[in-house]
Structures are given as C-alpha cells and as structure tokens.
C-alpha cells in the first residue's frame, strides 16, 4: 500500500513537471530596447535579446551599443568591444533558473559599461526576478546626445524605413511567449454558451464559437439581453493555454447593463462588473461556470441566473 501511495505521488509530480515543461517551452525572457522620439512618443520595441525556450536553461547574453543619433546595435556575447563611435553601451546577461506555476524565475545581470554623456556614472544590477508572461520591468535609460560634428539632432532609419529623430533609449526586461503572433501556427477554438435561467424555470441559450492563438485573449460578445428599456450585455475573453495532456483556460467575464438606448459618446453611466475564472480542462470536456447573481440593483435581471458553458480544443 505504501509503495502504491509513493508511486501515485511520484506520478503526480512527474505529471506536474511535464505540464511545467510544456508551459516553459512556450516562454522566453527578453531584454528589449525602447526608443523615444523627439516628439515625445515611444516606439514599439524593435530589438530583443532573448534566452532560449525556458524548458532548457539556455542563457541569453549580448551587448547593446548606442551609436550616432541613436542607431542601436545588438551583438552576441556580453563581453567584447562596443561599436565604434558608440555613445553608450550595455552588457546584458539573462540566466533562466526555473518555471513554476506559469512564472519564470531568472537572474538578470546588466552593466551600463559605456556612457560618454556629461553625467557619467556606471550603473549596474544583478538581480533575481520572477515574472509571468506579459509582465515587464524597466532597467535603464540613456539620453541620446546631439551629433558631435554638427551639434544638432539627426535622424536614423527606424524598422519601417522612416527617418526618425530619437532623444533617448531605454532597456526593459520582460517574460513573453516565444512565438510572435505572426509566427504562431497553433489555433485554438472555444464553443461558448450563455445560459439564462428565468425564475419560472425557462432556460434560454445563446451560443458562440470563437477562435484565436494560444496564450492570447480571444474576445467574445453575447447578444444583449433586452428587457423593456434595459439591456444586459455579457462579454469577455477566453485565453487557452495548451499544457501537456490538458488545457488551461482563463475565462474573463464582464457584464454591463444600462438603458437599451444609449449614446456611445456618453457611456460613463453604464455599470460594469468583472469576474475571472482559471480552470484546467481535459480534451473535449464541457465545463459550466456559474456566474454569481447580479444583485438587487440590476433590475429586471436580479432574479435570473446566468452561466457560461464552454468547451475548448486545439484546432491545429
């Protein structure tokens, strides 16, 4: 009996490790460079130093060189010379430690090893961080000096082939999913049913089918439930994560009610509530999430009960 118990626990731990490995396979740690234009807006990051997929402890290391006018270069390996004429430079190392419960723990070592600006002070950090995909943290920023020869700001080409003048560059560390949406080929689908139970026992159902990428929120909107001059709208998002032999599902549900006739320019009087559910489901399993009663203030929907039933699958 003892052997059986130990065997069961070992099997469970093995299953957990498989699930974690599956999640880790989808995740990387990245240090990204963010350029701010002279007009004040920050561009989307266009340069990344990343680890390998976190199911294997593959470190990421490199050096960022900030060249003339903010022209940025990323070179492999933290050690080594910066680009010729660089005004600032960072050496960065990311060392993955583990992935547990969907969060990555890693060590981040970085040094601003080059800075030709007047306010020259070496800055560095050696920290252990734990983050979930989508979370990030600022690291450091430097001002891009005007061109040494002309004394004026000058433009560089951005990722879209436009000439842009930049005033500063910042580094940020984040945990994200390994594949960009354009690279992701897996497709997830969800069948959703909104079930409305009236006090007299009548049950009304709406159904929706949505599809989208794994790890990304897939929005859904049920039709408004109208009653005389009032309208109740139930909508939200479903996030589907393939994990080993099952699937993790995050169901974020919002309900919003107010006058059925509305002016979209003045929607501040609408009441909104939100609830989130995290579940693990087996392939083909249908689960019902019973929503809490809406409360006394939500007439005429107070006495009704709502539930969302769903079934998810990987379509490819």
């Amino acid at each position: 009996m003892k052997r059986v118990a130990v065997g069961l626990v070992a099997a469970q731990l093995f299953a957990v490790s498989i699930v974690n490995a599956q999640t880790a396979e989808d995740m990387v740690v990245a240090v990204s460079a963010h350029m701010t234009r002279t007009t004040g807006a920050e561009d989307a990051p266009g340069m990344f130093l990343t680890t390998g997929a976190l199911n294997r402890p593959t470190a990421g290391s490199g050096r960022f060189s900030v060249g003339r006018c903010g022209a940025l270069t990323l070179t492999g390996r933290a050690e080594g010379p910066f680009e010729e004429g660089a005004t600032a430079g960072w050496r960065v190392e990311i060392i993955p430690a583990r992935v547990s419960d969907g969060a990555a723990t890693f060590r981040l070592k970085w040094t601003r090893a080059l800075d030709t600006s007047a306010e020259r002070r070496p800055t560095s950090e050696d920290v252990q961080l734990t983050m979930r995909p989508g979370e990030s943290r600022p690291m450091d920023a430097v001002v891009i000096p005007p061109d040494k020869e002309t004394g004026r700001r000058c433009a560089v080409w951005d990722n879209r082939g436009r000439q842009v003048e930049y005033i500063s560059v910042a580094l940020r560390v984040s945990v994200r999913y390994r594949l960009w949406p354009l690279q992701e080929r897996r497709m997830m689908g969800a069948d959703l049913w909104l079930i409305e139970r009236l006090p007299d026992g009548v049950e009304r159902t709406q159904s929706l089918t949505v599809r989208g990428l794994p790890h990304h929120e897939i929005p859904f909107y049920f039709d408004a439930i109208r009653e005389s001059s009032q309208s109740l709208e139930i909508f939200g998002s479903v996030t589907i994560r393939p994990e080993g032999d099952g699937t993790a599902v995050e169901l974020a549900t919002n309900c919003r009610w107010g006058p059925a006739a509305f002016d979209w320019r003045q929607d501040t009087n609408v009441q909104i509530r939100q609830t989130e559910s995290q579940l693990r489901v087996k392939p083909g399993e249908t689960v019902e999430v019973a929503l809490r009663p809406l409360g006394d203030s939500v007439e005429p929907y107070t006495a009704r009960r709502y539930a969302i039933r769903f079934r998810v699958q990987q379509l490819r």
Partner: protein
Amino acid sequence: MNDTHEVISAFLDDEPFDASELATALSDPAGRALLIDLVALRHIVQPDALVPPSLPGRRPAWRHLLAAAAMVIALVGGYFIGVRRNTVDTTEPPVPSRIVQANDWQSLPAGGGR
C-alpha cells in the same frame, strides 16, 4: 461588310448562321466589341410598342387587399423571427461534466477596466 459582321448580325437577327463561324468571330476581341455595339444599337432603336399591352380588365379589389395583407404578415413575421433568433439560440449546449462557481463580481469604475 466582312464575314465577322455578317455572322454576328445574322445571329442577332435570328437568321440562319454557321455556329463555328460565330465562335471564330467571337473569339476575336474585335468581334466581341462588334457584338456589344450591335446589341446596344438595337436597344436604342427598339420601338417602345413591341411588347403588346396587357389585356384590359380589372382584378377584384379583394385580391389587392389580400396581397397587401400577406406582404404585411410576411414582413412583420420575418422581423420577429429575426429578433427572436438574435436572443434565443435553439442550439442545445452539451451537458457539462462539472459546474464551477465563478468568483465574486468586481465592480469596475465607470469608464475603466478592460
């Protein structure tokens, strides 16, 4: 007038023509353009009175009323079927293997939240 013109013209005038010659003529872009020109020309010069007027006589008034009533019923019925389809879906959801209680609702400030 060349052969192309003749065969297309004969085709339009319901006169005897050689099908293979017509096919050859229409395989040429100039032949197709000619066909379009001739059709347009005939449309312009067509007399208005070619179609015989319908026979005189009045239909009973009750038939008009019946037709109008049928139209109103169809429109109103279609509208309500459409409204009903929007709110009530007859697709039966599958029976759930388990029921999970959602967490409590959190009120979001007006104009905020995702």
